[in-house]
């Protein structure tokens, strides 16, 4: 199948998936316990006043009628307004998504590079101890809960050592670079503001490390296994007869072939990081989609929770599409169906 056809088919199935997400997220958020009208109206409010608030929110209408309205507006890519802030949700997600994407991207790059280096170290060295250490480290890394890791790193580097900030994308007093991509690092570079770029990266270190370490483990184990398999193949054996170090052999010959399966995992890892940054964003006051989701759940902001679910669905489906395309472009042996 050609790449354009693949993209078209993928987009078609993506729409089906998204529709399912819209339906499920709408109804699931409505059957959850809680009453937004009571919560928003506040203490000291009589049942009559709560009813006025409910009516103003449109929550007094039958559920199916609410759903029909919702479907109609989502089809027009309008997720409605947040119950709490009254702002269009698409605007709020637009403001939050780049922060999460920047975090997830840095974390993905960090964990991929880290995994490759560790795997090469493990397979390349002839010392059994190094390999074992990498393997044990990988297991520990992948089993450490992200929120625990995030709190630990914050405690050590902000609390004790006082070398890194406690959170946020920039210090409180510093304003963001002019928005182009919404990635502070890139936007700062675009206007040549190296100081802001540096500060933004410093603020990224702890949250990125928390996310990266957690996904590093699984990726390292995969890369290590792949590399070991590749090292046993005939073409590597042939290459070996031509001389050169073991590390050179790994990097030049084994790694490119071992990388293909890793791309799938890295792609999905990225999508999971976007969705899974909720704890890290909470702990580091990172103003992304994760903290937005948290605030919406706690504040019982149904439309926001539904919209975030749909947005994450889009990120997942698009990522897997990109992975498939990249896969095919990189490895011509693969035929996609």
């Amino acid at each position, binding site marked *: 199948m050609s790449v354009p056809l693949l993209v078209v088919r993928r987009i078609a199935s993506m729409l089906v998936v998204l529709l399912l997400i819209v339906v499920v997220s709408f109804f699931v958020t409505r059957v959850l316990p809680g009453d937004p009208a009571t919560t928003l109206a506040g203490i*000291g409010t009589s049942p009559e006043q709560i009813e006025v608030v409910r009516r103003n929110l449109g929550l007094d209408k039958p559920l199916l009628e609410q759903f029909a309205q919702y479907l109609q507006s989502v089809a027009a890519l309008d997720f409605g307004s947040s119950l709490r802030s009254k702002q269009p949700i698409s605007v709020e997600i637009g403001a939050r998504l780049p922060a999460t994407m920047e975090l997830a991207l840095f974390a993905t790059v960090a964990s991929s590079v880290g995994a490759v280096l560790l795997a090469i170290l493990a397979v390349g060295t002839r010392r059994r101890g190094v390999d074992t250490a990498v393997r044990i480290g990988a297991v520990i890394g992948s089993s450490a809960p992200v929120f625990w890791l995030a709190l630990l790193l914050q405690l050590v580097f902000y609390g004790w050592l006082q070398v890194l900030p406690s959170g946020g994308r920039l210090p409180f007093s510093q304003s963001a670079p002019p928005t182009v991509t919404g990635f502070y690092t890139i936007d700062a570079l675009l206007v040549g503001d*190296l100081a802001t770029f*540096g500060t933004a*990266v410093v603020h990224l*270190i702890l949250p990125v490390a928390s996310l990266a370490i957690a996904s590093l483990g699984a990726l390292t184990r995969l890369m290590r296994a792949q590399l070991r398999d590749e090292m046993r193949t005939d073409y590597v054996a042939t290459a070996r007869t031509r001389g050169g170090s073991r590390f050179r052999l790994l990097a030049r010959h084994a790694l490119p072939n071992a990388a293909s399966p890793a791309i799938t995992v890295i792609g999905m890892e990225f999508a999971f990081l976007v969705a899974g940054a909720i704890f890290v964003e909470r702990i580091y006051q990172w103003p992304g989609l994760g903290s937005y989701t948290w605030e919406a759940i706690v504040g019982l902001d149904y439309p926001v929770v539904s919209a975030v679910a749909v947005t994450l669905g889009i990120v997942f489906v698009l990522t897997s599409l990109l992975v498939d395309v990249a896969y095919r472009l990189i490895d011509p042996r693969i035929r996609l169906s």
Partner: protein
Amino acid sequence: MSIFTKRRGAVVAAAVATALVLGGCAAGPGSTSPSTDEDVVFTFSGLPTAWDPVANSNGLGSLAVIRSVYEGLVDQVPGTYDVEPGLATDWTVSDDKLEYTFTLRQGVEFSDGTPFDADAVVYNFERINALGGQVAGILSNVSETVAVDSSTVRLTLSQPQIQFLEALSFAVFASPTAAKENEADGDWGSAWLAQNSAGTGPYIVGDKVEGQSLELDRNDEYWGGWEDGQIDTVRFVATPDATTVVQQLLRGEVDHVSGIMYPLVDYLDQLEGSDEVTVYRAEGTQIDQIQLNTQRAPLDNKLVRQAIQLAYDYESALQAAYKGEGVVPSGGLPAGYPGFDSSLQPLARDLDRAKQLLAESGEKIDKLTLYYYEPLAFEKAESLILQDSLAELGIELEVTATTWDQMVEAQSSPATAPDFNNLWHGPITADPAEYLGSYFHSKFIGGYNWSFFDNAEFDELIDEAQYAADEETRDAALADAQAILIDEAPAVFAAVPNRVEVINARFTGYAVHPVDYGGDIFFYDLRVAE
């Protein structure tokens, strides 16, 4: 692929290295203080979501914005229960105490340039009634608002209300022009005002970074004027967990932390030992209450409720929840609050009498259930003390941590509610009838009367107190109402914590405000210390 990976890795490594160097030079983690000498910035840990003066009055933290941006006819005096002239310079009250005629301050404009006049007041009262909710509830006694002339407004009440002016301080006004111009789907400009501002107050809503910070800038045209050392910019920022926020306070990265979610008593030694911050203490006006489900067996039996009230270990609760930083309540009103019956003694444990009452009740109780709101450590501590206390009566208590929404859902009827539910109680107004009524008057069943307490005599007394013509009549009715709450025991009044507020030491002029539900601060009154 390998080349790509290697190159990418090298670029990232170089970027991180560069960033560390640059970041170290440019703005290290500690250097978050204001950058210029002239601009006084107050950094407030806590990020409000929305600040429509009517629709968002109850949001924790929203009031800190609303009070800085908007004003009403009368203002609360910081640190007291009193009110003072605000946008009204003076007023007269008719003999039957039903008509209040206010003379409006001249020359005041909203921040969008609209003049403040009687029509603006009338419009805002229409808006309050249309939007409903807390402010409308507090002012439900206002039956008519009339613009007598452009600088005179007359409010008519349904019944005389002794604390009407205190309630009135909650009606703050937005520019009618701004609200009308930005109206969408008949929302009275609520969506717009949730994120913008158009008030007469000293501050204007400025820059906002979604999920990260919100700034209030000083309104240079403010009618009250400005002097040196006042705060130019208030910056609200997203809050981390308690440990981190305390460190941010101690390092001067934030100037203040908004209260209820942060058990600062755990860090008092550290905070009081620091030159960076000033710790303010005041008598508390919050009562931590454990509501009893009075409409379901066995807690529908008054003797059982009385037994529980007497079995509760108040002293231990105060220690466990607040390290003793507070007092044992004397009933439904905090000591020192208007209308408090000063003849009441703090509640005390009497286990023998409790056992006796339980035996008299004839109820055989094995197990009861309790919910508390998971993020609140003090509710957990007080709930566990109840568990211990009930164990002494041979009753097992199942303690469950829940979300706020689960609690609200469960409280929709006595059948789904647990036997006990925690509901801390902060003052919304200085009106004691409102303080007691909103939790125990039967008209608030379905609202926040989580005990489902339905006592006709109590209701009458609260109505009488709310609409009393003078303080004596009010206090007599309130004394009886307080006695009923002790006798009927619809709640365990577990503790009154002291108010503990921490502010960066470079600011003076702060007063702990007793009527403070939403983490209120009067930024305009603060000054930078010499």
